[in-house]
């Protein structure tokens, strides 16, 4: 997969690799479907991702 790693904003581990583009008014993230992730805006033009599953994320288990 071309592109760059997107990492979990909580634990810093890679979530998926992508190269986003806009199509029909939507932002497409090829590769994002390789992981189960939560998405949110961190600022007006930056979206951040994090793990959903605690068994994959030390931060969600309170370990980091």
């Amino acid at each position: 997969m071309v592109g760059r790693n997107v990492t979990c904003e909580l634990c810093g581990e890679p979530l998926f690799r992508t190269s986003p583009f806009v199509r029909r008014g939507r932002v497409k993230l090829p590769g994002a479907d390789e992981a189960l992730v939560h998405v949110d805006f961190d600022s007006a033009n930056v979206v951040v991702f994090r793990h959903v599953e605690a068994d994959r994320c030390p931060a969600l288990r309170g370990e980091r």
Partner: protein
Amino acid sequence: MKQLNAVISHLPAGEVEQDMRALRELSPDAEFLCCYTGPRSEFERLGGDAILLEDDWLGGAPRTYQSYHGVFAALAERSFDALYLIEYDQLVLDPGFEAALIALAEGTGAGFMGKNCVPRNGTNWPHYARFRRDRELFDHLRRISTREDPTVIFGTLGTGMWLSRDALDSYLSLEAHPRCYGELYVPTILHHLGHPVVDIDAISDLYRHVRWQPDYELAEIASLERDGAVFVHPVKSAATRRAAAAAR
């Protein structure tokens, strides 16, 4: 606390018998019941404690509208304080599994516990994406929710769902359900009915080796069992399940 362990299986009767025997031999004091979703002709060959689920609510293709209404209703008249629902391909490796689950439930006050059982709003979980604008579901949640935010959507893995009797009775008290998907609907509805919904992975290692896919191989299972794993999922190969049981 008396726990009923219900095992959902659609396999041929001979395989079901062997799976159920392995569970009963591992943990003779636990109560196991087969919830059979295969053909009636196979069900009639089953011995032991088993019920037939013919409604096909659990038999739909993945990512359609599988539901647990039928299995919950079929168990309503049974006597238990907690229901543990697993699929045939979840192996129980530790005879102390009931005590481990009950300790978690009592420690958290859970009405429902599951694998990766967390709110899924704002995620790319395919079932959240499917239902995030489902008017029928959200109208239903707004009608019945005891929570401040009636739009919270939970998700969990379909195997390894633990419910308190109160939670089950609450679910069964609802007269109607929107068309939905069980792995989303069960924890979501129980949350909105006021029951604490707990993610087992956030508080313990009990489900560390329970995953959606891929299948576990025999050597991995043996190694995990030596290391104290309580459950392993998925093990879809009957030969692997037989070999794992024989190796005990």
